[in-house]
């Protein structure tokens, strides 16, 4: 890896040394600071996980009829949540793969965390395609295998593409994340006190000794994986976008969807990174590694992707208008002024108006300010998916079959439950693994002796 650019504001606060980095980061899992706070947070998250399990059990017992879905609105929260979580999962590979290839060194201090976040988000997302099935016990019919019926999946259906897109994405992200962890696991092994801990970390460190040969292999594989992962960043959400774009429904049938879904994904992904990293760095004193400059850079990404999303919205309205197609025109007017107008204007506010505040440098560098913005964007992106799914369906071609959709308590229980699941996994992650990549940070220590 090449050294950081001299003129740039340091990526690691001055005064930090390789040892101090190791010490500060590895002490979080090893010494378990702020146990009370951690336990409180984890307990809360765990309680919500129980809610999720109840909701899942009840769906299996009674069927998806416990949700608000109906004809015409046959998709509701499940698909909304699926798209939202998958979107959040995108920051991970984007930061690890694309920014790596682009030599954006600032990625180093957040890639570990975002990759973890990606995995957990994908875990949450992957639940929904299964749960929303009327007969989940037959989910495996979506997989190609030589069955006794002589049948195969129906390859024209984007849902089948989803199966492959999402599973590939999940696996690659996992490998990528684990590979990056190996050197750090070795550090943990060497710093851990009790033998069982050292053995445990040791097993996963795969006998890393930091030999030059190890490093050569590591660098090479990491680069190759980054290359492999890059197309996935684009492919996964493009395909999710096609779940809608392939349909003939006004509001779904739109060629802009794949790119605009990808942008939206990165948009929401970065928002979620900020939401997580800001409290984390405050709590565990990582301000030296995730500096205000990092925040500013993420804020900029947020702005750019936000603009792409805004363009997506605009182009939907524009094409509806220029096509002169009555159903499309009705759809956009119905979104803005129909029964669901409130959701539409919420998403415009959160995803288009709020991010404009980031033109203001002070805000870009203010942790608390960014935290608020990131939360709003998270909300906005969820609502966006809700609007796409529900308002397109509830009034389509024949007025006789127009209807309304309202989420039931089980819809909410499952959605909130996955939030709990997500945070519970994050808590466990910071408890047992180094939340930031020590190995990579050490490269940017600015005190005299430069690594490599």
């Amino acid at each position, binding site marked *: 890896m090449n050294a950081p650019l001299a003129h740039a504001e340091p990526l690691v606060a001055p005064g930090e040394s390789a040892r101090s980095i190791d010490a500060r980061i590895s002490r979080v899992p090893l010494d378990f600071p702020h146990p009370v706070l951690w336990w409180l947070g984890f307990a809360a998250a765990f309680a919500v996980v129980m809610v999720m399990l109840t909701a899942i059990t009840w769906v299996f017992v009674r069927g998806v009829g416990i949700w608000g879905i*109906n004809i015409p609105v046959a998709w509701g929260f499940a698909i909304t949540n699926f798209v939202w979580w998958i979107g959040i999962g995108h920051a991970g590979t984007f930061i690890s793969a694309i920014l790596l290839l682009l030599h954006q060194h600032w990625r180093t201090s957040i890639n570990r965390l975002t990759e973890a976040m990606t995995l957990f988000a994908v875990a949450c997302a992957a639940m929904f395609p299964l749960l929303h099935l009327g*007969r989940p*016990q037959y989910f495996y019919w979506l997989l190609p295998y030589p069955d006794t019926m002589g049948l195969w999946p129906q390859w024209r259906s984007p849902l089948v593409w989803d199966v492959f897109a999402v599973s590939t994405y999940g696996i690659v992200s996992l490998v990528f994340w684990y590979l990056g962890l190996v050197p750090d696991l070795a550090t943990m092994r060497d710093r851990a006190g009790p033998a069982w801990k050292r053995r445990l970390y040791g097993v996963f460190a795969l006998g890393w000794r930091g030999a030059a040969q190890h490093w050569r292999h590591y660098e090479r594989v990491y680069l190759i994986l980054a290359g492999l992962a890059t197309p996935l960043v684009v492919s996964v959400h493009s395909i999710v976008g096609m779940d809608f774009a392939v349909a003939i429904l006004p509001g779904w049938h739109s060629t802009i969807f794949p790119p605009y879904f990808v942008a939206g994904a990165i948009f929401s992904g970065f928002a979620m990174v900020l939401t997580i990293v800001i409290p984390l760095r405050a709590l565990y004193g990582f301000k030296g590694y995730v500096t205000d400059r990092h925040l500013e850079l993420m804020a900029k990404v947020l702005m750019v992707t936000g603009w792409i999303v805004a363009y997506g919205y605009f182009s939907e309205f524009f094409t509806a208008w220029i096509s002169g197609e009555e159903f499309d025109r009705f759809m956009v007017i119905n979104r803005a002024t129909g029964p669901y107008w409130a959701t539409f204007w919420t998403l415009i506010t959160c995803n288009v108006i709020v991010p404009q505040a980031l033109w203001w440098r002070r805000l870009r560098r203010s942790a608390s300010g960014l935290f608020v913005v990131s939360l709003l964007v998270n909300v906005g992106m969820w609502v966006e998916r809700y609007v796409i799914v529900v308002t397109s369906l509830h009034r389509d071609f024949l007025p006789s079959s127009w209807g309304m959709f309202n989420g039931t308590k089980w819809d909410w229980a499952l959605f909130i439950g996955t939030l709990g699941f997500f945070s519970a996994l994050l808590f466990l992650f910071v408890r047992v693994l180094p939340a930031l990549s020590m190995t990579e940070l050490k490269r940017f220590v600015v005190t005299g002796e430069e690594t490599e």
Partner: protein
Amino acid sequence: MPPPFPHPLLRRDDEFAPGSESWPEGMSRRRFLELMAASLALAGLGACNRPPDGTIVPYVVPPDREMLEDALYYATAMPWDGYARGVLARSHSGRPTKLEGNAVHPDSLGATDALTQAAVLALYDPDRSRAPRRGGQVASWARFEDEWLGVHRDLLSRHGRGLALLTEPTTSPTELRCIHALLDRLPAARWFQHTALARFDRDGRQDDYDFGRADVVLAVEADFLFDHPSSLRYARAFASRRRVEGGRVNANRLYVIEASPSVTGSMADHRLAASPAHARRLLAALGDLLDGNKPSPALAHEERRVLAALARDLQGKAPNVVCVAGESCDDAVRDWCAARNARLGAACVTHHALPAIRSDADPRSAGDLGAAVQAMQAGGIDTLVVVGANPAYTAPADLEFARAMARVARRIHLGSHVDETAALCPWHLPEAHFLEAWSDLRAYDGTASIVQPLIAPLYGSRTAAEFIGFLAAPAGRNGYDLVRETWQHHGGADFEAAWVRWLNTGVVDGTTASRSKPTAPAKAPDLRAGASSSGVMLTIRPDPTVRDGRWANNAWLQELPKQNSQLVWDNAVFVSPTLAATLQIENGDVVQLSVAANGRSPISGRTEPARSAGSTNPNEGPTVEGPAWIALGQADDCVTVSLGYGRTAAGRVGNAVGFDAYPLRQSASPWAREGVTVRKLGRRHALVSTQTHFAMEGRDIVRVALASDPAGTAGRPPETPPSLYPPVEYPEYRWGMLIDLGACIGCKACVAACQAENNIPVVGKEQVGLGREMHWIRVDRYHSTKPGEPPVLHQPVPCMQCENAPCELVCPVAATVHSSEGLNDMVYNRCVGTRYCSNNCPYKVRRFNFLDFRAPADSPVNLQKNPEVTVRARGVMEKCTYCVQRINAGRITAEKANRRIRDGDVRTACQQACPTEAIVFGDLNDPAARVVARKAEPTHYALLEELNTRPRTTYLARTTNPALAGANRGDAA
């Protein structure tokens, strides 16, 4: 007699392995098992097909060979207001599973209505009375017979004095014979008749009409297309004048004057919404116009225009014109119409008279319920036998039947349910359903039919004739002998041969009554008298689905969207938009209807007693509370309620549904009241309708063609847009359907027929409210505000069987795919329930089992299930398949004979039921097929054609024939 249980070998009505699906109302243990099952399935063990260790049970002694055949049909007849409606009943290994029309029966002509379709479910109603009851305790027929022997001896000694028999008016010769036999045996006994529904005879005559010949029809409060014993025949005749053939239509013109939207009103070319009182004014004005006098000015501009046109038409087209007054009209109006018909020469051209077929005016009858109540109050009755009727619920409030009945010592009730009347009778006895009974009935025109059973009585019940026969002579004969005895001498020389012929055809030949000249007063009565009403009026109508309440426990009918509102599981107070605005009423607001205590019943100036069952406050007169429904086409000066709801002893389905309107009823004026006050109460009641948006939003959904120039006004017929792909070939058959919106009257018989044929579940009011009704074919109803278009447009929408089906390419597991004959197959057992197909269906005709909607395994309604159609489990998508099971059956028959399927061999359930033949189905590859000819009409169009789905189901435009373009706005007021 076939066994009353499904043949074990042909049992096919449970699709999925037990336990692999869940039951909404199961025990907790069951839920646990389901959970286990689900998770096991998730572990991949779901698709278990190791040979099941089932058993297979042959007969000891085989029944007739045909018993093992797949389906058998028997001709019989079902009672409709006492008149016969000829049906062919389908039996699968001894279970009646469906009723279909009998083509040779005059009041069926091969078609059915929704009630007939639902009648088969009534046979399996779990709440049917299953045993005789003494004081509520299960007793036995034997015990009743013993007791009756004593009573009978006693009655004989006093020639039957003190015995009152209360029946519904009937057309059954055998039942009448038994009643007369009773009266012969016990001359002093008295026989009363009661029905809450219409009476069709007046001074010994019944009106009959020939709508095939009428060029101009004026209907005054007459729903002859829907609510009449001959409605199927009338609808067929009427539609024959609406059908575009060879690009032309010899259209009739229908003028309707009515207070509340009805099926007939929805077909009007010009419709005037008017309360009965105002209708008299309109008729009076019309009379003036016809007589060349200057009409009274006090009419709206629109009304004057329409009346002028009507007068012109009546005079211009005479004698092929007819004025029809509904049974709810008072005598003056009916006389007026009769006189006008006579004047216009319609008599014997389009208007005929038939002898009274039903027993209402039978000389030996002692009168109606009023007479019965008087007799009871007078104390002259010590034994009351109620047969079939349910007066405790259906009696007009002012009679206070219950109080009178309490004075009778011995009260006996024969009925299909332990209903409100049974609750007041120490003795209740179960009455047989017509599918398990030997009986006979007459059609409106007198044609008799033998009612033959398809199944042994499920619960040891008896028919009215058997019962009355026993009352007369405790020897007791069975129905079979009684019926044969009745017809013994009609058959001519070879009775047995005739008997078999009658059973096969479903009609007894040579029994049709001859039509004669209708009687008419020399001069039309002056309707100005009594027309001077002010304030809001109330009209009371039988409910379009549950009628007077006798169908209240029929879940199919409760869930069938009402023909006039799309409401389900409720009745409502119909108010006009204008009235609603003035009273600030919205749909679902509970309103209180009260009739002033001294409120004159319309016309006849007599005042009525203030006491009333429903009354909350003695000096205020009767009041009733019910949710309001704002109905387009409702008269502004009139609110309308329907009977049949708010029952307390209908059964688990019908109890506590809707509100009871009987308290507003007066024996003197059963159908209308004056001086009604409507008060909005604070409360709301959730009314559920299957359609919430009635405007077409300017979209090309229902096309309207002017009868004067169908080709010119219907818009362009569908053409096949260019495609990048080579056209798909359908070498064998190409199934297609055509729905003629010109003929469709929106009666929804097709919806009920489809439900019966395809094992479509009932989901209940709550689920329908969530948008989860399961009907495979729906009849959309649009309210058009375009000038020149009828205000109400009906459009039946089944699956369009698109050639480019959007649903097919999004299904991940190929559960919905195209067949080689162009059907859009739906494979329930492959469906995993992503519901993507429904999202992508522009017609939204797909239905999803959001919960387990199947009836519990031990419910008798499962015996109705069609074994040829899979019963869908939870989480599975379903939809119309053009009755593919029938196509397959037809193909197998044809293939075995090594021939092609002929046009008409395969008829879908909806097509079969349709009274107006609006639905045509057939092979588009067969140039001789009727469907091909119909699709060649210039009014042909495809729904949402621009989406290039290439639907196989297409439409003919609605035809309308207004006299004044732009003036046919029924809801103009």
